[in-house]
């Protein structure tokens, strides 16, 4: 009988938590690496069209983003036509020039010619607004542009 009583007092050993910090750090690092930070809060609908002949946007060169699309829910007072968004606010077409100049200001001089303007335009927008943006960009000599798109079958845009 004493054989059975011997272990009565012993409890389940505590789980070793020495490696818990490691696991937590691992998760932290993972999310630090994999997270893409969005620099702007979008006030417009921005569903990009898709294309399959795309090139990666090179992060080595400076990129400025111009968004365009219909104002999203909560911003209906700005109308239902597609609008331009620069940084965090709605903008007019004639503000693009100032925007490009301020973007250039922040750059080192040797990088200025490599500034690419990425146009993130909603697929439901029409070309009128895109044409206006392009015309403004030509005026300030920002000629490198990129129509940012998703990756997919281009013909699916039409339905």
């Amino acid at each position, binding site marked *: 009988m004493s054989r059975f009583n011997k272990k009565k007092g012993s409890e389940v050993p505590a789980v070793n938590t020495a490696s818990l910090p490691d696991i937590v750090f691992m998760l932290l690092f993972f999310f630090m690496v994999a997270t893409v930070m969005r620099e702007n809060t979008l006030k417009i609908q921005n569903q990009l069209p898709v294309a399959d002949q795309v090139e*990666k946007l090179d992060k080595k060169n400076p990129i400025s983003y111009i968004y365009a699309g219909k104002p999203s829910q909560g911003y209906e007072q700005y109308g239902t036509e597609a609008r331009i968004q620069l940084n965090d606010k709605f903008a007019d077409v004639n503000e693009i020039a100032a925007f490009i100049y301020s973007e250039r200001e922040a750059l080192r001089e040797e990088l200025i010619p490599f500034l690419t303007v990425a146009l993130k*335009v909603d697929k439901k927008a029409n070309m009128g607004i895109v044409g206006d943006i392009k015309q403004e960009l*030509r005026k300030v000599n920002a000629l490198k542009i990129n129509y940012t798109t998703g990756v997919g079958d281009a013909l699916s845009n039409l339905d």
Partner: protein
Amino acid sequence: MAKRAAPEVNAGSMADIAFLLLIFFLVTTTIEKDSGINRKLPPMEESDEDVIIKQKNIFTVLLNGKDQLLVEDELMEVKNLRAAAVEFLDNGGDGTCDYCKGKRNPSSSDNPDKAIISLKNERETSYAAYISVQNELVAAYNVLRNRRALEIGPQKGFRDMNFVEMQNNYKDVRYTGNKEKLKEVIDQIKLEFPQKLSEVQ
């Protein structure tokens, strides 16, 4: 039934496992990058000399306000545009282009260097349709460039690599081949099939 104390698990190597996983994820995770169609806008100042371009060297693509595609004034489906553009670019009407495999139709483009695709749109054209058309036109250039890459690649030591793969390899830091030579081949192909796509407002 003897209830024994479970032997303590040795946790000394847990940190090693954690770091192994961390390194694995570090290596395999790719941060999502934006991608899109790159274009260069024409500069504002008009050049003084008037460049005269023969009508047959211009391939007019018009996307009207109802998203209808008019190619050389004829209605066309977007899915047929790629083949039509390839045929136009690859025509080689004046015979100076020895790598062209087109029909050498004298009433179509002279050679890929002279051939220009002019893309027009109206204000009401939808952006989605415009991107589809841009995509198809870029695809036409890529079809020809890929074909050319497979022709001249093996002579330069880049077997079984088409133009798009060449460009990707050139940008890839992990690519182990001769990048200078690859750049030469890419530049040569770009020169042979220059992307002359004009966007008219």
